[in-house]
């Protein structure tokens, strides 16, 4: 029973991992930008949420009305800059690493490294839960999962079934050729970058609902988020969701059956094995060379 409960909680919180990973995965897959600054955007989303809730008394979930457009703009600007500088793949990794360092330090200088946490009065979701017999679904994790599923599912449908989405995928395959078919990659890039920024805002909001904030936490997301990106397959949104849930489930189970201390061990071992056997993600169909 404990195992079932832990697995369930883990799987639900996996929605948050998936949401964090989604933006990174799409910019990497479609724009070939490995944007480590995405972690900085999530951090910014989290702190903005905190600020709006404590300062303006907004409902935590409603803050996305403000944070998502703001971070959409920031994400689009970032993408514009990467495009201008012709930063792809490795150079983008380095540049965005630098940006992340700057962001984390700025957050530290602004909010200090104190742990910030929404008080129980400001955050009605923190301790409520939904009971299904012996199983309990905490509201925050449930929210994390539902929002992530909606966001990622929507993104997936958009990519698969709209002209825009097809354009993006053609673009991901070959930029020059896609450009020859009239796909304006700049505008497309801004849109993708912006959407990634907005997803970071939502992820930051959900993180703030369940956790204490401190700037250095952004580095701690590295492991789990990259695990989800890689396991899900770079650029594969649905894969990201499945991988997020899978990683959450695995952590929950390992921590109950074995010990919480072995959880990172199993997780990183899983990444390494996955990288070796399925470097393009667990759900990748291989094509002809």
């Amino acid at each position, binding site marked *: 029973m404990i195992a079932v409960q832990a697995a369930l909680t883990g799987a639900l919180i996996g929605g948050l991992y998936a949401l964090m990973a989604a933006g990174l995965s799409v910019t990497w897959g479609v724009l070939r930008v490995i944007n480590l600054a995405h972690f900085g955007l999530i951090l910014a989303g989290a702190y903005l949420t905190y600020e709006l809730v404590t300062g303006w008394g907004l409902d935590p979930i409603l803050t996305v009305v403000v944070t998502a457009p703001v971070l959409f703009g920031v994400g689009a600007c970032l993408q514009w800059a990467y495009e201008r500088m012709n930063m792809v793949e490795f150079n983008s990794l380095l540049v965005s690493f630098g940006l992340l360092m700057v962001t984390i330090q700025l957050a530290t200088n602004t909010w200090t*490294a*104190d742990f910030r946490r929404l008080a129980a*009065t400001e955050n009605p979701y923190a301790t409520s839960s939904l009971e299904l017999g012996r199983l309990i679904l905490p509201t925050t994790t449930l929210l994390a999962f539902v929002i992530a599923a909606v966001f990622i599912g929507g993104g997936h449908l958009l990519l698969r079934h709209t002209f825009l989405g097809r354009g993006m995928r053609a673009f991901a395959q070959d930029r020059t050729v896609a450009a020859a078919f009239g796909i304006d990659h700049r505008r497309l890039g801004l849109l993708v970058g912006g959407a990634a920024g907005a997803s970071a805002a939502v992820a930051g909001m959900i993180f703030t609902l369940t956790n204490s904030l401190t700037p250095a936490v952004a580095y701690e997301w590295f492991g789990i988020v990259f695990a989800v990106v890689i396991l899900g397959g770079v650029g594969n949104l649905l894969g990201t969701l499945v991988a997020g849930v899978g990683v959450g489930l695995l952590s929950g189970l390992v921590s109950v059956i074995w010990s919480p201390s072995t959880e990172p061990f199993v997780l990183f071992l899983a990444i390494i094995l996955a990288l070796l056997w399925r470097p393009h993600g667990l759900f990748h169909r291989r094509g002809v060379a």
Partner: protein
Amino acid sequence: MHRRLLPALVATLTIVAVAACTTKKEPSTTNQNPIVVGSTLSLTGSLAATGLIHKIAGEQFLERLNARGGLLGRQVQWKVLDDQSDQAKVGQLYEQLISQDKVDLIMGPYATPNILSAMAVAERHNFVMPQHTAVLAPQLTYDCQFPAWSIGTTPNRFVPNLLLDAVATLPRPPKRIAVLTSQSGSAAFVTDGLGDDKTGMITIAKERGLEVVVDAHYAPNPSSWGSIAAQVRDAKPDLLISNSLGVDTVNALTAMKQLGYRPPLTFSLFPAPGPLLGLGADGVGVLSVSIFEPNKALIDKAGADAQAIVDEFKTKATAASVQFPVFETQAAASWNAWEILVAGVKGAGRIDQKAICDSLHSRGADTTFSGHLAFDVNMNNFWPTNLGLKQIQNGQWVMVWPASRAAAPIQGPASP
């Protein structure tokens, strides 16, 4: 090769030459010059929340000291650098303070790993180093480090016994305990002991006939608390012992609350004090360790100055937007450390590291909040501990154990 190497060679030589031509101004020793104390504190990074408390307390102490004429008739200045909570930086910064800035005295940094790194440098240069909060007593082997917060030479025995003695006095003493342990320095030490000494919370609880129903270790900052919470909930312990730092206990309790569970009684080893109070009703009754809480009984006992110090700290900390602006264990430890340094210098009558160290060994130090401290080299200078237990009662931390120093009696869980 010539073309490539020559500039490098010339540059290297120039650097060396410049360094060699350096003629350092020796600090003149006239009494007009202030005494400079150097230290680092974690002003940014993961330890910054507490680092800031030590900074405010230190500045407040020096303000008062200087207002009363300073030390040896000289004003005292404090040069504090930010080690960014990075242990690897601490050593280098202390080197910089001692060798380059040529500070007269040093004060320890905050948190055990940083203190141990600083101690290595202090030992290399034979500097006296009072330190606030290092817990790993067996590793603090340098003769001239002086703890300001003594948790005894064997915290791995002392803390479990302290806690279990205290809860044994409750009307319904706990029988089943769950132990959560963060795998970081001091917390794991209290649970498992250190090196060959495997005594700790687990073994002592078993010796006392308690049943350990959960013994879970986790790496610092676990990604999710859900599974740990589920484990504790299903084990139904009478007492949850969270040997952890910072906000771990808050996170664990919140996750349990989400599962509709609240442990009857909770002990948290080294928590950030603010967030636990922020839990509101869910935090009521949580126990932790303390050397000082600003409860009236304790303040009165500490003497006339204490109330003023506590009030002034609160004003300063609030102004610096510290989240939990209360003069408690951390600030008191800081105060002790400065008083140790001052006592040493006064005892020696001059700025001479050896003399200061000897004076402290022979005469000890008087402190406002912990009384007279005597340092025994054989005990790594750890004085008989005055550590007690505090508990959240009526929305604030209250000293509850030992009975002789308690401001209020310890409270058990409310009847189910």
